[in-house]
């Protein structure tokens, strides 16, 4: 199998240019590419369009890239757990495109799957339907939505192998598999990196064909937004 391993996050993101369109996996702070985000902070590129379900918090996740003003536009379903985000949005420094979560995940899936457009009921009759084609099927109305693709996708998995195969853990899977398929270049960071052949082919969540670079991430913080316990 083709070896896709790079040494570090810095080497993985080396060619991401200013004004790139990125996809970043994760739901809230769960399953986000912590190492790649740090490498982008260090690299200091600007004008990024980030497609990600959420925008992190002030001091973690994509929120860090907002602090450094590296993000020009967010495409998300839910944002603003995050004061700096709110400030930039209200001041017009940041563009935001809000998309229903199911439509967002399906548009990304469509991007990876070569489906340029599909019909979905979400948002029919609401303001997000403005300017969109409406069609009725079996007596119900649907909106036509188009695919989303990215120059680079940054995903985070639990285990990965040198051929780029990925296995996620728990609900940290979320948007990562679709984004892996929808990026022209997909960079995967993993907690555990093993030689090709060690993962069970039947348990792979993201086949290696979708991953161009893979590296072992370090110092995962895995911050919890709502630590909720019972006695």
């Amino acid at each position, binding site marked *: 199998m083709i070896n896709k391993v790079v040494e570090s996050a810095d080497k993985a993101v080396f060619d991401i240019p200013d004004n790139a369109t990125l996809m970043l996996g994760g*739901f*809230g*702070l*769960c*399953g986000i590419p912590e190492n790649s985000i740090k490498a982008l902070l260090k690299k200091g590129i600007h004008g990024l369009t980030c497609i990600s*379900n959420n925008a992190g918090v002030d001091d973690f996740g994509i929120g860090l890239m907002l602090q450094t003003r590296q993000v020009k536009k967010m495409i*998300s*379903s*839910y*944002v*603003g757990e995050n004061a700096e985000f*709110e400030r930039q*949005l*209200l001041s017009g420094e940041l563009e935001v495109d*809000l998309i*229903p*979560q*199911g*439509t967002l*995940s*399906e548009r*990304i*899936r469509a991007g990876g799957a070569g489906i340029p457009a599909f019909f*979905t*009921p*979400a*948002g*029919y*009759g*609401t*303001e*997000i339907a403005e300017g969109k084609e409406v069609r009725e099927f079996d007596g119900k109305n649907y909106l036509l939505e188009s695919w989303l693709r990215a120059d680079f996708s940054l995903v985070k998995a*639990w285990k990965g192998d040198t051929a780029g195969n990925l296995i996620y*853990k*728990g*609900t*940290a*899977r*979320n*948007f*990562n*598999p*679709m984004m892996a398929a929808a990026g022209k270049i997909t960079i995967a960071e993993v907690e555990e990196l093993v030689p090709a052949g060690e993962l069970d082919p039947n348990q792979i*969540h993201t086949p290696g064909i979708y991953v161009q670079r893979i590296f072992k991430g370090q110092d995962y913080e*895995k*911050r*919890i*937004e*709502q*630590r*909720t*316990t*019972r*006695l």
Partner: protein
Amino acid sequence: MALDKIGIAKRIAQEIKDGSYINLGIGIPTLVANFIPKNIEVVLQSENGLLGIGPFPHEEEVDADLINAGKQTVTMQPGSSLFNSAESFAMIRGGHVDLTILGAMEVSENGDIANWKIPGKMVKGMGGAMDLVASADHIIVAMQHKSRSGQSKLLKNCTLPITGIKCVKKIVTDLAVLDILPEGGFKLLERAPGVSVDEIKNATEGKLIIEGEIPEMKLEVAKV
């Protein structure tokens, strides 16, 4: 006396059918899980990719990689499954989830719902709400009958930007249980204990349909 949030959650729990798959929204809907009768088996779906949400974890069980749609740490029930976000909404959009329970800021008499945006306030996004309301066969809304300033939230037409049209079938408020009829109108089914029909009338701006005697809710569900 008007119900508190716990009361609303308890009343909604009575609507839950054995063997159903349910998506619970954030807020009061999440509380409903606590009042599902012991003899009823349901599976809770979390739109971030989990079927079979269990109780909140004990401190030592907390796993950052296992959260619900409200970003709270959770556990899994035996027989759970994990999947990606596209699969999760395929499940929702495809009509596989039997019941969706969610909160609302306004509901109109033809079943429109507004629960994602207040003009002039910071817009945080619709999350999965538009997908849920556009897809679900059966939606129950948990809400206060009136706003803090005393305005009715059960309206002829929603004044806020809507999340979905003609989708709400049943509403449980602090004052009443109501169905939304296919032809439009809030049909009053039950009153909260001690709340009069007149009180409900005064609190409902949209078309209220009252037929015969309106019984009081029964809330004697064993607390779990």
